[in-house]
């Protein structure tokens, strides 16, 4: 069983909602990303989504684009992503890491080299935002033998025909996009999301995580109530952006930037599932 499956299974057995923070590898720098990942685990993260910085993140809002730009200014690339993961793995062999990003860097590196290095570094899942399931065949052929989960997004606009294909080829979890728009926008209609997630349940056994627009306890609680867990990106990347204003990397400062994750964990756990 993959790390992702066993992690989610354990959370479900304990009646816990999964909490999945997203940060950008190399933002603000390589060492700090590793420190942030360990802190996020202490804060109660179940899985970490690690952004692979890209110059043209057209499905992301301004906050995550700025995070990617900070990382790129410091020379981050896929090599940074892999070394962050393997360094994290030296002390943490259980928390699943999902690499999330865009296709071009992967195309330029080549799929076989990318999948091999991701697996060797200790990554567990892969989410390529601009790779639709219909074009993912050659990637899936490489990830399946290595037990790497490939996660696809389901959007409010996704048709039933596409949902069937996505469910068939996804593993790990389904990522339900809460809104029409880009990361960092605001959720407007919780009821509609509940309905859509319920519809997905009828089509798949996969756990369903909700992301986009979850920024605080209230939005996390609302989304967790209708799903198996929540993904928190822009709100966290915004806080991490503040680290660029200072040279200090003290543990207390790092913990301050991820405090919203600890708070969401507490809120999720104090609510009966």
């Amino acid at each position, binding site marked *: 069983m993959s790390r992702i499956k066993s992690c989610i299974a354990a959370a479900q057995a304990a009646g816990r909602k999964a909490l999945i923070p997203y940060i950008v590898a190399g933002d603000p720098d390589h060492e700090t990303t590793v420190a942030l990942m360990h802190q996020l685990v202490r804060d109660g993260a179940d899985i970490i989504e690690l952004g692979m910085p*890209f*110059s*043209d*993140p*057209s*499905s992301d*809002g*301004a906050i995550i*684009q700025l995070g990617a*730009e900070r990382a*790129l200014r410091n020379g981050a*690339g*896929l*090599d940074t992503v892999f070394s962050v993961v393997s360094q994290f793995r030296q002390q943490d062999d259980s928390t699943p890491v999902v690499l999330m990003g*865009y*296709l*071009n*860097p*992967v*195309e*330029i*590196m080549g799929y076989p080299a990318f999948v091999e290095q991701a697996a060797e570094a200790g990554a567990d899942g892969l989410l390529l*935002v*601009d*790779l*639709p399931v*219909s*074009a993912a065949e050659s990637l899936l052929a490489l990830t399946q033998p290595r037990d790497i989960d490939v996660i*696809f*997004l*389901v*959007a*409010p*606009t*996704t*048709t039933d025909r*596409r949902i069937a294909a996505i469910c068939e080829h996804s593993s790990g979890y389904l990522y339900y*996009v809460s809104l*029409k*728009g*880009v990361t960092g*926008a605001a959720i407007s209609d919780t009821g509609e999301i509940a309905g859509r997630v319920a519809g997905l349940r009828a089509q798949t056994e996969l756990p369903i995580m909700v992301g986009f627009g979850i920024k605080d306890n209230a939005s996390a609680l609302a989304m967790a109530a209708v799903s198996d867990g929540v993904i928190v990106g822009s709100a966290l990347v915004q806080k991490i952006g503040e680290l660029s204003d200072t040279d200090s990397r003290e543990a207390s400062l790092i913990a301050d930037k991820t405090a919203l994750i600890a708070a969401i964990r507490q809120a999720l756990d104090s609510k009966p599932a």
Partner: protein
Amino acid sequence: MSDSETAVTPEQDMFSGPDLAGHFGRYGGVFVGETLMAAVEELDQVYRKLSKDPEFWQEYDRDMKHYVGRPSPLYLAERLTAKYGGAKIILKREDLNHTGAHKINNTIGQALLAKFMGKPRIIAETGAGQHGVASATVAARLGLECHVYMGADDVKRQAANVYRMKLLGANVIPVTSGSRTLKDALNEALRDWATNVDSTYYIIGTVAGPHPYPMLVRDFQAIIGREARAQSLEEYGKLPDALVACVGGGSNAIGLFHPFLRDAEVAMYGVEAGGDGVDTGRHAAPLSAGKPGVLHGNRTYVMSDDRGQIVETHSVSAGLDYPGVGPEHSWLKDIKRVNYVSVTDTEALDAFRELTRMEGIIPALESAHAIAYACKLAATMTPEQTIVINLSGRGDKDIHTVADIDGITI
């Protein structure tokens, strides 16, 4: 060779792309976030249906004739021809179209699609501002809301077009992210589309983006090549020996080339922006110096570094300042049907001045790239031969840029 002899159109050959999934060989396809997939699929279905409907094309042709002013003339540049002493240099005068460039051929077509789909809101990206103006124009004519994304740097260097768009009632949104040019405007337009997908039609300005855009923009621009073909046969009794067009995203080039692709005797040259020179790294020539990757929804040649990050481009002409290119061009490069070359900023500026002084035509800086290359090419050919250049737009929008370079304030 007569028209009818070459008019055989086999169902499947190297030039019959894209396939149903939008591929030209290994290029093209659909690579966008899931939120946009349904919209892209819907557009594909709508276009497939409408493009088989003769009434749709009748309406398009009517607009081309009475609103755009087509057919555009095929003009023999006699003094330029005499100077270079070789092939006849002939200009396809897209600069004479309403709004001053080929871009209107596409926006008229896509506006018909938007109308059919019942979308009240139009968005567009623009570099030089020509596509933005052409989009604002069709939106004004149909009474649609229009938002145009434009890189903040381009807003500065194309101030006149920004004001034209505003006069036409469009909202111009300067984009300050990334390199603040055309690619960033495209990113921002894609974000807007994902956010307002129900109400919005996205008019992409070139043969890039996810399928079906490269196909439908090409089909709307192919009127350039169909006219040029008929005009050539009528005026010169033969097909041109060579076609030359500038390549930004590649829409004016594919529009001229496409109806001639099966005419093996017609040589084709796509001219990219060489900027300071392709070997300096400061250019916008992905076909000459890039490699296959994925950008803005399709697989194509892109300018990216060895980490796969898109690199900043440079060109004196805002409309060519783009790190990607339409996927059909990538295919035509690989199968060697079209030669892709580049000219520098300096060569383009020289051609801009030369055409202005010798023929009384001020070309767009984009089109000046094609002229610069065609003049060199003409000198290597014979007087019986002809070169048709796509004069894709007029240069009124560029006079401030050129004056700046000359150190003149106007």
